[in-house]
């Protein structure tokens, strides 16, 4: 879509050096650096031309043990009726990214869910707790390096039955 290129240019103009330009030209998404993500987010929401006022989806992504974790944001503008996807890579060892929970209130639970499943720490999130899993759960289940525990709270974890005899 054209909107991606346009938004990418605007961000690059406003915050030089924050957009990672892809090796080959594509227009599915915009790849950003995590450093000044919070300011960019505020800009995206409040700029009259962009006005991305609705945070549709935040997806945590793990594409393999060698690669970085990724957080992908899908934004939508109720005013201009356009949408973009923004991707931000985070380190696997100490995943951390500025929170946009106070920019879009809807991002609150979505970020908590990503934290729950991938362990990505959202800096500045006011209530970063587990969302779907129990509070005492250990590990980040949707990461590729996650190993199912044998015992949870003294209960034996049932293994997937193979050949069930």
């Amino acid at each position: 879509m054209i909107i991606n290129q346009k938004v990418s240019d605007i961000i690059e103009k406003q915050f030089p050096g924050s957009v990672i330009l892809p090796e080959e030209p594509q227009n599915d998404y915009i790849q950003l650096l995590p450093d000044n993500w919070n300011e960019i987010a505020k800009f995206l929401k409040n700029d009259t031309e962009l006005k991305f006022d609705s945070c549709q989806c935040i997806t945590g992504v793990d594409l393999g043990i060698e690669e970085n974790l990724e957080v992908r944001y899908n934004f939508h503008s109720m005013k201009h009726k356009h949408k973009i996807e923004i991707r931000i890579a985070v380190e696997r060892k100490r995943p951390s990214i500025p929170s946009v929970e106070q920019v879009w209130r809807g991002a609150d639970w979505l970020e908590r869910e990503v934290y729950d499943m991938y362990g990505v720490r959202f800096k500045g999130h006011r209530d970063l707790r587990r969302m779907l899993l129990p509070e005492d759960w250990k590990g980040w289940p949707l990461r590729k390096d996650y190993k199912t525990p044998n015992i949870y709270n003294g209960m034996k974890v049932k293994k997937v039955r193979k050949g069930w005899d």
Partner: protein
Amino acid sequence: MGLVHADEMTLNIGPQHPSTHGVLRLKVKTDGEIISEITPIIGYLHRCFEKHCETLSYEQIIPFTDRCDYIAAMNNNFGYVLAIEKMMDIQVPERVKYIRVIMAEFNRIASHLLALGTFGLDVGAYTPFLYMFRDRERILDLFEITCGARLLYNYMWVGGVSHDLPIGFVEASYRFLDEFEKNTKEYHNILSYNKIFIERSADVGVLPKDVAIDYGVTGPNLRGSGIKWDLRKDEPYSIYDRFRFNVPVGKGTMGSVGDCWDRYWVRAEEMNESVKIIRQALDKMPRDGDVHEALPKKVRPPKGSIYFRTESPRGDLGYYIISDGKGGPTRVKMRSPAFTALSALSEIASGWMLSDVLVILGSLDIVLGEIDR
């Protein structure tokens, strides 16, 4: 003279409670009847949908999407298969397109009937609930003769549908729609215009426009707040651009815009719009054609990712699917509309009475299966 000391009481609504619509737990602080703080605690129905998807093939995920939003399983199928079809660039036959729309809209009516009925139940009206269930039952009958299942259909496939419509389906649908249109008037008379019901729901739990957008609330809840946003109209997927229908929005008829009554009313009106769509689709549908024509030999989308949104009865249902070119997806994320709607609960329901909180919760029409996934 000692001062009268009043403490706030912590009260757990749920996980087992008649009005939480599933296993939702609300931790509330009450001062007498007034609720001062609400913390929804979810995850009691978490079935690891996204983890499961990593180990399954694309076709095998479809029955799992059924089980996310078990009230509107057809719509869940619909969004998923459309996303995969878009990735694989499949053109489905005309008849399949119409069948899918008919099924999705029927399921939307069924889902809204359940939403309105249980909302009435939250307010204390028992009888409308059973009237609505009676009509829902007939829709489920139509689904059953088509695909054999009443709740979890696994009906829509990538590139087609599992079965063609059975003999007599079209006639039975027309018969149902004629009767249903008469019944909706009765529902309005017994519930919508009932003064007690209006008193209970109008001006209660107002969700203002900007708050709704900020929280990412979509679907009837957003339209109840007066914003005309419907993916079927604004970003038409499948063949929704071929039908003529209105997008009802809340106007604050009985109270202020965005109150519980408006959300209720938007759903009630949407059922009528769905009836319109089904009628047009039944009229225009090609009478014969092979529904399995475009089924791909192997469902293997090319490498890449997609975020695809459809309008489910609860709002924008998004699928984020990442494919690495193998038989199964790397990641399937479901953006559930009820999840975001519930996140707005503590904002709009704080400060109301205990009875109102449950009414507001009912008006948001959440399905815990979709929230917890």
